[in-house]
């Protein structure tokens, strides 16, 4: 009969993996509906069984989809779960700060979801009003007009100043004092005013004024966010009448590592070869930026990996689906870039090396053969690696069980004593966990390359070196530090 501590540890690990890997989008194997169904179950289970841990996970570096889901579940059911006494102050603080960390579009969609679920308790209204008070409502009303309008109506928040007339009345026949609103009103008639608006709002007006695409994208660039700039870099290059599509370094500079890799993977091989200097420089910059954001403790854990061997699964299933094309492979390559920048000795092997063995020219191709790359990367130089990381979606088929067999041989017969971890970017809603390659190998989910640090942290817990109480204390410490650092900043995030 397994004891309660072990069950608790497995449950918490299940939930953390779900929070790191699941995004509710369709994956190569399962559709979006199945993913959402699976994650909804895991969330409901944790809410009722481990409410305090559930709320503390908001501070654990999980992805925004799951953070929004946690906030939704906590607000919808204020009394569900164990330990009824006095938990709300911590929960409220965590919720407030989690909302500020998320992108505003996601927060407003969350509010719409609360509205649709008819959640109307005082706590929810207070949270929403607090969020609205921390935002520049003029900008939000311009960019997320429909959402702000219905949110204001939901919580009966007064619309101060010109917000009311802007949202609820026609712009014709009046002028606005707020510069943003006035620019918006003028954009109906004047092309110059279009370039003072945020990019998504200006798009509609550009179509109205029939501005040529290339000119519009060039002039609106200062108003784009980093993600938009990166996403549209290729469109701009395609519209510019240049012989080969050239990505500008500035467009690539703001992207996180896996987005940058996804952009690179979308380029044909010749284009990658032609621009490899630009791409390598952008990768190095992004990696340094990601490393700079790590805390000292996280950095130390990363460096404790030592001599690292990395196996990347670039089989056809790493291509993903149309909405998140190449995401699994981009995460894997991002992990490689991060480790390569942080550590002195990193050896990498791809499951299908197509064009030399330079990961810059990787391609999602072929079947999932991980045993031989693992063998190659572990035996390459005289000394055995100290850590082995495998990034794969877990559907090993050439042959199945290859990783298990090779690791078993390495551990029992060839003297490998190091640390081995399987990072899986894909969540399997049928088993409520990322699919495991081997029973002896810890599997942790990760959807962003910087999650590798969180993955290392949770791997220690999963391997039994930390008890659930220890994890709770660590999460609590992390949560308080997270809240404190935000209070020290003092302001709302843009």
């Amino acid at each position, binding site marked *: 009969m397994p004891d309660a501590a072990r069950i608790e540890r497995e449950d918490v690990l299940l939930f953390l993996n779900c929070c790191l890997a699941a995004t509710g989008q369709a994956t*190569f*194997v399962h559709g979006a509906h199945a993913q959402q169904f699976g994650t909804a179950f895991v969330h409901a289970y944790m809410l009722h069984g481990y409410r305090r841990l559930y709320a503390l996970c908001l501070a654990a570096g999980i992805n925004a989809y799951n953070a929004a889901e946690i906030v939704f579940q906590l607000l919808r059911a204020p009394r569900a779960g164990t330990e009824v006494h006095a938990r709300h102050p911590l929960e409220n603080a965590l919720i407030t700060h989690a909302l500020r960390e998320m992108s505003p579009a996601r927060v407003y969609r969350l509010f719409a979801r609360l509205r649709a679920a008819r959640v109307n308790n005082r706590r929810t209204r207070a949270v929403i009003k607090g969020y609205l008070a921390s935002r520049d409502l003029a900008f939000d009303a311009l960019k997320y007009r429909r959402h702000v309008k219905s949110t204001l109506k939901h919580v009966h928040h007064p619309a101060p100043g010109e917000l009311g007339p802007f949202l609820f009345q026609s712009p014709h026949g009046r002028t606005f004092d707020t510069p943003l609103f006035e620019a918006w009103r003028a954009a109906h008639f004047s092309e110059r005013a279009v370039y003072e608006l945020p990019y998504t709002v200006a798009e509609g007006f550009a179509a109205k004024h029939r501005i040529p695409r290339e000119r519009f994208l060039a002039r609106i660039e200062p108003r784009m966010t980093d993600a938009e700039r990166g996403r549209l870099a290729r469109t701009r290059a395609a519209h510019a009448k240049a012989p080969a599509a050239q990505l500008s370094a500035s467009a690539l500079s703001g992207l996180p590592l896996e987005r940058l890799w996804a952009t690179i993977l979308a380029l044909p091989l010749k284009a990658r070869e032609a621009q490899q200097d630009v791409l390598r420089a952008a990768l190095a910059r992004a990696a340094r930026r990601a490393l700079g954001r790590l805390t000292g403790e996280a950095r130390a854990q990363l460096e404790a990996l030592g001599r690292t061997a990395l196996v990347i699964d670039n*089989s*056809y*299933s790493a291509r993903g689906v149309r909405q998140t094309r190449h995401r699994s492979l981009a995460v894997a390559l991002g992990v490689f870039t991060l480790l390569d920048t942080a550590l002195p000795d990193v050896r990498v092997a791809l499951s*299908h090396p197509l064009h030399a063995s330079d990961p810059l020219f990787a391609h999602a*191709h*072929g*079947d*999932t053969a991980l*045993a*031989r790359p693992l*063998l190659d990367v*572990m*035996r390459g130089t005289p000394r055995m690696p100290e850590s082995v990381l495998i990034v794969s979606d877990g*559907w090993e*088929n*050439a*042959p*199945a*069980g*290859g990783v*298990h*067999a*090779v690791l*078993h*041989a*390495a551990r*029992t*017969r*060839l003297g490998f004593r190091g640390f081995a971890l399987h990072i899986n970017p894909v969540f399997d809603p049928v088993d409520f966990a990322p699919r495991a390659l081997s029973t002896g190998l810890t599997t942790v989910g990760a959807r962003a390359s910087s999650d590798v640090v969180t993955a290392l942290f949770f791997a220690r817990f999963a391997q039994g070196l930390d008890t659930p109480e220890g994890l709770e204390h660590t999460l609590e410490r992390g949560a308080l530090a997270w809240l404190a650092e935000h209070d020290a900043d003092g302001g709302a995030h843009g």
Partner: protein
Amino acid sequence: MAELSFAGLSFAPAQTWASVRVVPIMRDAPAPPLRLARQAVNAGATVKLDARTRYTSYVPHALVVRSAAGPQAAYGTALTKDGTLQKKRGHAWMDMHRLAKRLPSDGRHAGGARFLPLHVAIEGFLALHFGGPDVAWAAYSERALRHGFSPRWEAFCAGSGLYKLDDALRWFEIRDGQVGAALFLGSMLASVMITPHPDDYRALHRTFLTDLFGDTLYWEALYGAPAAPLPIAVHQMDHVQSWDDVAAVLDADHAARQAQSAAMLDEVRTAPRGLSTVMKLGAHKLMRFIPDLAPGAAHHLGEMIVGADGHLAYLKTLRLAPKQARRGHLLQTLAAHDWALPTAADAMGVTEKQLLNRIVDAGFGAMLRAHLRERG
């Protein structure tokens, strides 16, 4: 009796999903100088075989085989017009001439042939003793003696109706250099497809969904045991001393899987009985075969294009349901005994009355006189 030659072909580890197991087939030898192209038809087709015989079926696509040396058309180009497409009561219908038709070379394409995949093989099976009894015994009706078994028909299940076949094909990861696949449903080998060139296979990979399968395969896909992936046995690593030993274990496992796949395909390899050539294409021949229809394990029909050295350039097989094979076997036995019912019944080990019942159960009741058709 002949055997198919899988020389120059090797197998890769299988990929499984639900009850579907797909074994990739790779070509070691250089590709034969042929290319296949797919010509969409998506219509019912009445194929004029000769002056008096028609073959009718739903045809999803036709295959055009051309010499690789000549000019190649890009995929998707409309190739030569085959027949007129009409709409009859909302269904598209086409009249075609011949199941396998030679195409002359024009300026844009090399010469070759257009044939209807699988239908070439099925027609060989349906044509078995299609003419009816040769000897006018009293038991046979006038209709059988005059018109034979017309219409002789068989029903199959389309691949799109098989449980999870669509998903399995969508998630299948095509290997580099893969030219074919062997499809297993549950424990049964359903079909083998081999194409000349890896790009041809990529284009034809999903045609398993429009292929024909005997109805037992429908039940096997639904209720057969889930095809579990066969992992490497970890105990094989118990005696390794070095990394080279580990590599040797992986190689040995690969070789063992090869042998196992080759053994699983034995029933197709030894299937051909009535081999007949349909058309000659330069050094290659388009042939078809029917299996030994005696009650036994598996009955695989097939069509293939073989080179002069016997190497397979193209192969496609279809597994008959036992009931269909029994029908063919019944006709063969009757024909072998000069259509005399008492002799044939003795040879099959049943009484004459039981043989008459078998004939009626097989759907050939129309060949008997009316008073013999009643069961009793």
